[in-house]
């Protein structure tokens, strides 16, 4: 196997996975099962396999069944090209309270490629505490380029929590371009966590367009664990008074990986707050470019906007650039930015080693500590601990395919 795929793990029959298993019927020859351990009890999952939404998979959830009610939050608009949803049989294995059940149900498969987006809508006033998870998998060698859109709207006074995970399961050179359009309407709250975990040959461009309206709150956690070339473009507009926006990101890269983060955040309305914290750990010959712009419009008085970008280089050959831009047209604002690029602290390292912590473990602890500042911002405790675990494994280099599962997943 090419070194580029060293994180893919072995394609052997998996042992019994503790969570739900989904047999991958899209691959004729594969008996492999895909598992995602991020979802928690009561998570509603949507699988997007090579741009095809598999709605039926929303039944795959463990624990409390009420979370799987017909209360439809995500809905797909009819396909633009007029095709009817395809009905197909497939199997879902679930393990509920350790009792294994096999269900058979119709699957609605349809493309969500350009012009035919996946729409997620949190209706007005509705509070949905359970996570809604979109698992985007690239696996089809015949389809290496893909563009799709995801629209998420949190209507007035609603609350929603969305997790988006991106994976590559086959060894092809995948190119993915996704547009994620988010609107958080008046008084609504939306938590959005994106986890990017792809192999070294993948190229993934994500463009976020985010609008946060009056009295609304939006929180982004963007955790980039792995990927060949990752480009995150985050365009954010605060359009109503007292809009609140927090963007947090952690990117980990080594080898020859490239990570580009571009943020354009515009305060259009007065009395809004924004807070950005982006941190990166770069080893090998990895390159990170961070560019963060905060623009405060002329009448956006009483704006508070803060941005920081910190990079930790763990090798002499890793590179990080950081370009903050503040463009302020209002005169009564509090804005600041900070950018650092540094290496591991020698004093800390010696202190730990003098206590018998070997040098590799000491470096790992330092990196975890560095990453922690971003991870602690994940409000859901279980999700936070799960992602901390993934980050640790990633930093250990063992990566991130589950120890008890055959496929490269989270």
């Amino acid at each position, binding site marked *: 196997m090419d070194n580029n795929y060293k994180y893919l793990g072995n394609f052997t029959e998996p042992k019994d996975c503790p969570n739900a298993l989904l047999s991958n019927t899209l691959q004729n020859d594969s008996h492999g099962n895909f598992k995602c351990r991020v979802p928690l009890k009561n998570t509603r999952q949507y699988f997007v396999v090579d741009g095809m939404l598999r709605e039926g998979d929303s039944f795959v959830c463990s624990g409390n069944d009420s979370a799987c009610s017909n209360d439809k939050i995500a809905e797909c608009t009819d396909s633009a090209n007029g095709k009817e949803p395809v009905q197909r049989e497939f199997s879902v294995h679930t393990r509920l309270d350790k009792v294994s059940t096999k269900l058979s149900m119709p699957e609605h498969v349809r493309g969500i490629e350009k012009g035919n987006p996946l729409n997620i809508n949190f209706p007005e006033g509705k509070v949905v505490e359970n996570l809604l998870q979109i698992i985007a998998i690239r696996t089809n060698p015949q389809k290496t380029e893909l563009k799709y859109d995801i629209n998420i709207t949190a209507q007035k006074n609603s609350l929603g929590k969305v997790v988006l995970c991106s994976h590559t399961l086959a060894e092809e050179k995948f190119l993915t371009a996704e547009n994620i359009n988010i609107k958080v309407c008046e008084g609504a709250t939306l938590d959005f966590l994106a986890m990017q975990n792809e192999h070294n040959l993948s190229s993934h461009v994500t463009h976020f367009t985010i609008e946060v309206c009056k009295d609304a709150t939006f929180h982004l956690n963007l955790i980039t664990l792995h990927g060949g070339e990752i480009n995150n473009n985050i365009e954010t507009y605060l359009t109503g008074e007292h809009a609140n926006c927090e963007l947090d990101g952690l990117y980990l890269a080594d080898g020859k990986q490239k990570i580009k983060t571009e943020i354009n955040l515009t305060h259009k309305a007065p009395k809004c707050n924004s807070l950005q914290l982006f941190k990166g750990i770069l080893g090998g010959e990895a390159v990170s470019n961070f560019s963060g712009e905060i623009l405060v419009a002329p009448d956006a008085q009483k704006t508070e906007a803060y941005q920081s970008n910190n990079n930790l280089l763990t090798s002499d050959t890793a590179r990080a650039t950081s370009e903050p831009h503040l463009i302020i047209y209002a005169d009564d604002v509090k804005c600041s930015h900070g950018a650092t690029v540094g290496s591991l602290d*020698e*004093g*800390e390292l*010696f*202190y*730990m*080693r*003098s*206590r*018998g*912590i*070997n*040098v590799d*473990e*000491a470096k790992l*602890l*330092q990196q*975890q*500590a*560095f990453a*922690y*500042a971003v991870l602690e911002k994940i409000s859901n405790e279980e999700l936070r601990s799960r992602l901390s675990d993934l980050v640790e494994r990633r930093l250990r280099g063992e990566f991130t395919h589950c120890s008890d599962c055959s496929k490269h997943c989270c």
Partner: protein
Amino acid sequence: MENLLEINNLHATISGKEILKGINLVVKPGEVHAIMGPNGSGKSTLSAVLAGNENYIVTDGTVKFMGKNLLEMKPEERSWAGIFLGFQYPVEIPGVTNVNFMKTAVNEHRKEKNLPALSAAEYLKMMREKMAIVQMDPSFSSRGVNVGFSGGEKKRNEIFQMAMLDPTLAILDETDSGLDVDALRIVAHGVNKLKTNNNAFIVITHYQRLLDYIVPDIVHVLYKGKIIKTAGKELAHIVETKGYDEMIKEQEENG
């Protein structure tokens, strides 16, 4: 009795500047040595060299610890072998909790001895016992290592760590600096509690005050990178009342 530590003609430099200029010192199990001396005499350098700080370069001499060549060992290997350095300025490590830090350290020591890692419950029990020795509140365990600790809390944390790792030779570098009388008593009490016939301490200090609580068997005065005087505990009293001047003059006349 076999020597625990044998330092022979030790020379060391930092950034090209020679700080240690021929140290000779023998420490036996059960002994408490005090090293005193004016600022800049090389006391902290000696402790850093013994702990393996790579900023210092040993240019001459040998150090044997329990028969092994200490200078060949990495800092972590020295710790596993039984050396502990109590830092004059304990390092703050934001984001690494005390519990995670010490648990990792204890388990690395156990791994080295082919012992299984401690379970969470076993660790907690041990931690509570050792924290009690220095009257440290268990709530400190969930805080970042030394982050936001007062001077006294940091030094207590050093002694707590020492108790957890149970070293054969502990070097305490100005553990008394920045301590009020109560904290000093707590720290000294901790040290005395951990003292046995099989381990040894090197206590580096400016003041007699600490040596009232931790009574040394042997006192050395270090000056310009050499030990210029070695005697019993009464030497500390002489330093306290008369200072170093007389000794230094005597040394310079002889040398």
